């Protein structure tokens, strides 16, 4: 019996304890184990498979910090499972299994300056690291957070980004939108253009990038050009996933499975991988 209980494909049960509508198609869900607390321990950058039968399962980054007493997911409504999740109410139960994937190596980041660059929903995994780092503020150097979205209505966790983070010591938040409205005071333009203007020095700095594939591509290229060592640029990959544990054969790039050897990779690791789809 105990052996069966450990099957990695068997979801545990969690309960939705809060829901916030962030943008037109993104909601953030607070999730707790049915017996209270976090459903399981994890590290920043790891993912969980959420289960909503009969719609099925889908994988999401855990966006809350591992130090929080619950878990949060920011979920964009794109299809079968995600649209069912968007119909859930506080108090509803869902299945959850994980944690999956390799985390961001936050221990290796100690003492370094950190540059976070997030595009759209790509901020989700970064937020887990950011809140972890800000909680253990003294262990890390200067923190710069660059966030970009299509419009100012597309930011997830807007209040946290604009109210909480900038208040932390030695922490700067830089926002940009593709298309500004009249009341927008931040930058207008794509993230790579904004980065060019901000002109960060690569010295003693680690860059952590997440967003749509095309944005990642341009940002990584630009960081390399401005002198960042590819081994100091971290990013995450997204491929279709089913099992989450390196067995269903779906998410490989060459001999690596993104669900278990990723989703976090350095630009140096990716340089050898990306051509091997």
């Amino acid at each position, binding site marked *: 019996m105990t*052996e*069966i*209980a*450990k*099957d*990695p*494909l*068997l*979801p545990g*049960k969690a309960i939705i304890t809060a829901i916030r509508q962030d943008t037109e198609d993104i909601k953030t869900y607070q999730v707790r184990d049915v017996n209270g607390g976090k459903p399981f321990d994890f590290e920043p950058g790891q993912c969980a498979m959420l*289960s909503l*039968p*009969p*719609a*099925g*399962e889908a994988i999401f980054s855990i966006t809350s910090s591992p130090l929080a007493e619950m878990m949060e997911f920011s979920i964009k409504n*794109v*299809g079968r499972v995600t649209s069912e999740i968007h119909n859930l*109410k506080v*108090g*509803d*139960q*869902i*299945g959850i299994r994980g944690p999956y994937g390799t985390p961001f190596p936050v221990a290796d980041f100690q003492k370094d300056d950190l540059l976070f660059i997030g595009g759209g929903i790509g901020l989700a995994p970064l937020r887990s690291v950011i809140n972890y780092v800000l909680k253990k503020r003294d262990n890390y150097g200067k923190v710069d957070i660059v966030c970009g979205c299509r419009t100012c209505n597309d930011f997830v966790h807007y209040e946290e980004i604009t109210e909480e983070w900038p208040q932390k010591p030695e922490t700067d938040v830089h926002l940009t939108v593709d298309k500004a409205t009249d009341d927008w005071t931040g930058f207008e333009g794509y993230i790579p253009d904004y980065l060019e203007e901000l002109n960060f020095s690569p010295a003693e700095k680690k860059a952590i990038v997440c967003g749509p*594939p095309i944005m990642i591509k341009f940002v990584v290229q630009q960081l390399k050009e401005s002198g960042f060592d590819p081994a100091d640029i971290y990013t995450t990959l*997204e*491929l*279709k996933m*089913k*099992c989450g*544990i*390196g*067995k*269903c*054969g*779906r*998410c*490989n*790039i*060459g*001999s690596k499975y993104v669900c278990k050897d990723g989703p976090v990779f350095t630009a140096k690791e990716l340089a050898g991988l990306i*051509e*091997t*789809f």
Partner: protein
Amino acid sequence: MLKLDKNKLQDFLKAIEEEYQIQLPVKKADQTDFCNFEDTLKPNKGLEIDLNTRLSVKSPKSYLFPRSESYLEFKKDNERLDFKLKELTGKANLIFGIRNCDQESFKILDKVFLQEPVDQLYKRRRNSTITVVARCLEQSETCFCQLFEIEPAGSETGADLYYYNYNDGLYFTAGSDQGELILSDYSQYFKSVEPEIEKKLNQEANQFNGKITADSDNPLMQNKPELLYDNKEAIFNSDIWQELANRCLECGICTYLCPTCHCYDIQDYSADQSGERYRCWDSCLFSNFTEMAHGDNPREETYQRLRQRFFHKLVYFPEEQEESLACVGCGRCLGSCPVNIDITEVLALAGGVIND
């Protein structure tokens, strides 16, 4: 070594059927596949136990990793949700007459499913499966297991029992304690074997196992899988994939019949508020296998998917699993592809690419 007279085989199988669900090669309408022994006893089914055909059309991997396996029951009751893992019921499986290539394919599946985190669905079937290997002393035209260092006449361990099919008898040796136990529990069916016969059979087996690949008359044995591995960059970028893709129908039969292909999909099936979750075989040759939201697909083109199938077996799997190649040379993909694409053609082309 112990002998079971062939005319006692049915009685022996009937006896061990008390303990095991027996699967064995059966011929029906000229096609040999593994079937329930029970069914061969029904006279109207036209099924005939076939101990001679070397290669069953379907591989016996489905006994460890079923084509479709419902593993979870779920129930919804307002906001409440319950999951329950389905229990495996029934007797242990005994696969009788499996060839050593298929036996070795189980080791490849083991590497995938039994590495951490252990797939318990697979493990519980694996642990309750007994295998009885029919030793090969001859190769078929489509066989090339020795290319992958598999011994067709069988090794000493791996399976629970091994037998030679020789004249009027089956000559058994045990490969595990479990096999030993079967031989002693059912000793009334077995006779001792004259030393000359035992010696002759073992000699033949050693010779056949040791036959060096290049000596073989079989042209398939001239291929060199390591060529592909050693020159993976050049071969990855070569034109052969596009040429092969022009023919491939993406039917996926090669992946379904292959004993080492292990890709699967997970789906839910429901009747109202309750239902089941199942996993079923999937194929890297299907275009929706890796297709993501907004239509992004890292392997959009047929040639990329075809390349993935062969690179997985011959490059990625060995990279990940201590140089173990994920092909056992059974030749099923040779025989079944409607447009004759097979792994030996790929190996031959890859060799050609390098020699150019």
